[in-house]
């Protein structure tokens, strides 16, 4: 990317709130049901029906506001956003416009790469409650090509639209911010954050300007960014595209663009509407939402320990590296797993953290399962890590044991015994192997003695091979050095 251009990004995130019923009706919000079986008269926009606001949706929005240090409005107002589309049967979406429930929040990102690891403050302009629209299906089956099918199960599902300030300066920062919001809503239990099911969606407003220029460039809005990876790729594509257009002397057209993940490009979808195209006005069917200080304080009392606080505690309490603490606290379930394993282990928390972040996370990713369903429970991992810490097995053998545990072959101790994986601790036995390896490799031994120090690695490898990995590498190293230099030149490195 050219250093002559500054990138300006703002994100609008739609988080589906984890209520049982819809925001204005008593229909279920469960995902994946038969089309239109969860769309009642209110969701269908029948004449004469009235919306009644879901108490939980308000509480969840309030909880989010407090978690991002925002102002929770004591009085907020629902407005009608008018537009015409078949998946919106009323002809308007009930949203909030001038008086949203949450305003002036903030969060800090540390892994955006723009501030050398220093936290960067990203402003949250507002977060407002609104209802989701239905879903259009464009290819139902043959014989119906002239029609689109409408499923209104999703219509009326509560959404919290979280709008950031244009404070983000790269695609990487945008992803770091989005991950942070994702992590916060999951910690709060207000959204399942499931991106495949569309519970957590993101639109990005992207513009570029010559570095040093004050006024903002014309922006485009990118839609349909339904994974963290796509957010980064789509924004990076769009930045390059805008710079190319401007450097060729062209102008950016303000428009909505759709990201095509198959081709990794964005293409125009429609010209961008202005707010006044939507003819917003206060919804006469809904009264202002009024909450008092006591309510806000009662909600505040239910806030859990949030990702930043947990990360700091992990660094202080468990002496973890800040980066590792960040990874472990990204998801509450992962943090809980780590804490349970650490509590059960005699080994240092740092070693437990390495295993949770390393082997365990890799196995979960490989099999596509969540930490809650891990095939190795926290106590099981703790037992394994303890066998490394007390030198029963090496770290390398431990990976073999872990794989067997993952495959359901038993506990760490059972597998170590059954497979005879215990480290050779008998010095005489190990010495015998070392002597044999040196005897089998006379020319390499001579080269080592002539000063080719790097060959020590070769010898360690041979000994590990001969013992099936059951030797302690540090012990082998010391023993080899001692033997190769003839013993009499021992520098005290023998163990």
């Amino acid at each position, binding site marked *: 990317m050219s250093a002559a251009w500054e990138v300006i990004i703002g994100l609008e995130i739609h988080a589906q709130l984890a*209520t*049982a*019923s819809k925001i204005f*009706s*008593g*229909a*279920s919000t469960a995902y994946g049901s*038969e*089309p*239109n*079986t*969860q*769309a*009642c*008269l209110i969701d*269908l926009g029948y004449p004469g029906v009235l919306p*009644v*606001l*879901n*108490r*939980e*949706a*308000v509480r969840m929005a309030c909880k989010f506001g407090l978690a991002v240090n925002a102002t929770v409005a004591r*009085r907020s*107002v629902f407005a009608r956003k008018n537009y015409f*589309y*078949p998946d919106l049967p009323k002809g308007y979406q009930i949203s909030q416009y*001038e*008086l949203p429930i949450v305003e002036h929040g903030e969060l800090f990102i540390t892994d955006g790469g723009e501030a050398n690891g220093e936290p960067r403050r990203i402003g949250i302009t507002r977060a407002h409650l609104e209802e989701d629209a239905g879903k*259009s*299906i*464009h290819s*139902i*089956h043959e014989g*119906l*090509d*002239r*029609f*689109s*099918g*409408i*499923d*209104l199960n999703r219509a009326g599902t509560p959404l919290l639209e979280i709008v950031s300030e244009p404070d983000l300066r790269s695609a990487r920062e945008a992803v770091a911010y989005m991950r942070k919001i994702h992590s916060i809503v999951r910690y709060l239990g207000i959204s399942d954050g499931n991106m495949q099911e569309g519970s957590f969606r993101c639109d990005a407003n992207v513009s570029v300007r010559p570095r040093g220029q004050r006024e903002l460039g014309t922006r485009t809005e990118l839609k349909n960014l339904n994974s963290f990876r796509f957010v980064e790729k789509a924004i990076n594509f769009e930045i390059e595209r805008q710079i190319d257009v401007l450097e060729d002397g062209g102008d950016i057209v303000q428009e909505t663009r759709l990201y095509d993940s198959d081709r990794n490009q964005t293409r125009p*979808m429609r010209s961008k509407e202005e707010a006044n195209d939507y003819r917003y006005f*206060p919804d*006469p069917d*809904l*009264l*202002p*939402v*009024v909450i008092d200080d006591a309510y806000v304080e009662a909600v505040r009392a239910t806030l859990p320990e949030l990702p930043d606080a947990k990360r700091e505690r992990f660094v202080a309490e468990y002496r973890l590296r800040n980066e590792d603490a960040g990874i472990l606290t990204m998801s509450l379930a992962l943090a809980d797993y780590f804490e349970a394993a650490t509590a059960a282990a005699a080994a240092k928390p740092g070693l437990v953290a390495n295993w949770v972040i390393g082997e365990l996370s890799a196995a979960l990713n490989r099999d596509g399962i969540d930490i809650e369903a891990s095939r190795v429970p926290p106590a099981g991992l703790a037992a394994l890590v303890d066998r490394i810490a007390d030198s029963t097995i090496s770290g390398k053998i431990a990976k073999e044991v872990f794989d067997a545990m993952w495959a359901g072959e038993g506990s760490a101790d059972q597998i170590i015994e059954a497979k005879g994986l215990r480290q050779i601790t008998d010095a005489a036995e190990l010495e015998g192997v070392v002597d044999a390896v040196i005897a089998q490799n006379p020319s390499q031994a001579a080269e080592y003695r002539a000063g080719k120090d790097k060959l020590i690695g070769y010898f360690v490898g041979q000994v590990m091979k001969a013992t099936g990995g059951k030797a302690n590498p540090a012990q082998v190293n010391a023993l080899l050095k001692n033997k190769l230099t003839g013993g009499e030149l021992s520098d005290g490195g023998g163990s």
Partner: protein
Amino acid sequence: MLARLRIADDEVADTVDKLTRIVEFVDRLSQAATGDVVPMAHPLNASQRLRPDLVTEPDRRDELQQNAPAVSDGLYLVPRVIE
């Protein structure tokens, strides 16, 4: 739309007078100090009642879809919408 009003010649003077008074009234309104007044979002001086988060609506799809001109596979059919 005002330009399309048909006004008889003998009513012009009177209408001009009335319209002028309306414009003056609007000017007076805009001088009112409204800085401290919260915009009215609803004529009733009340606040929104909230309902508990309970699923109370049963599935009535078959009944409701009898009102629709065209349905298939549980979907409401509309003329094809091109994105």
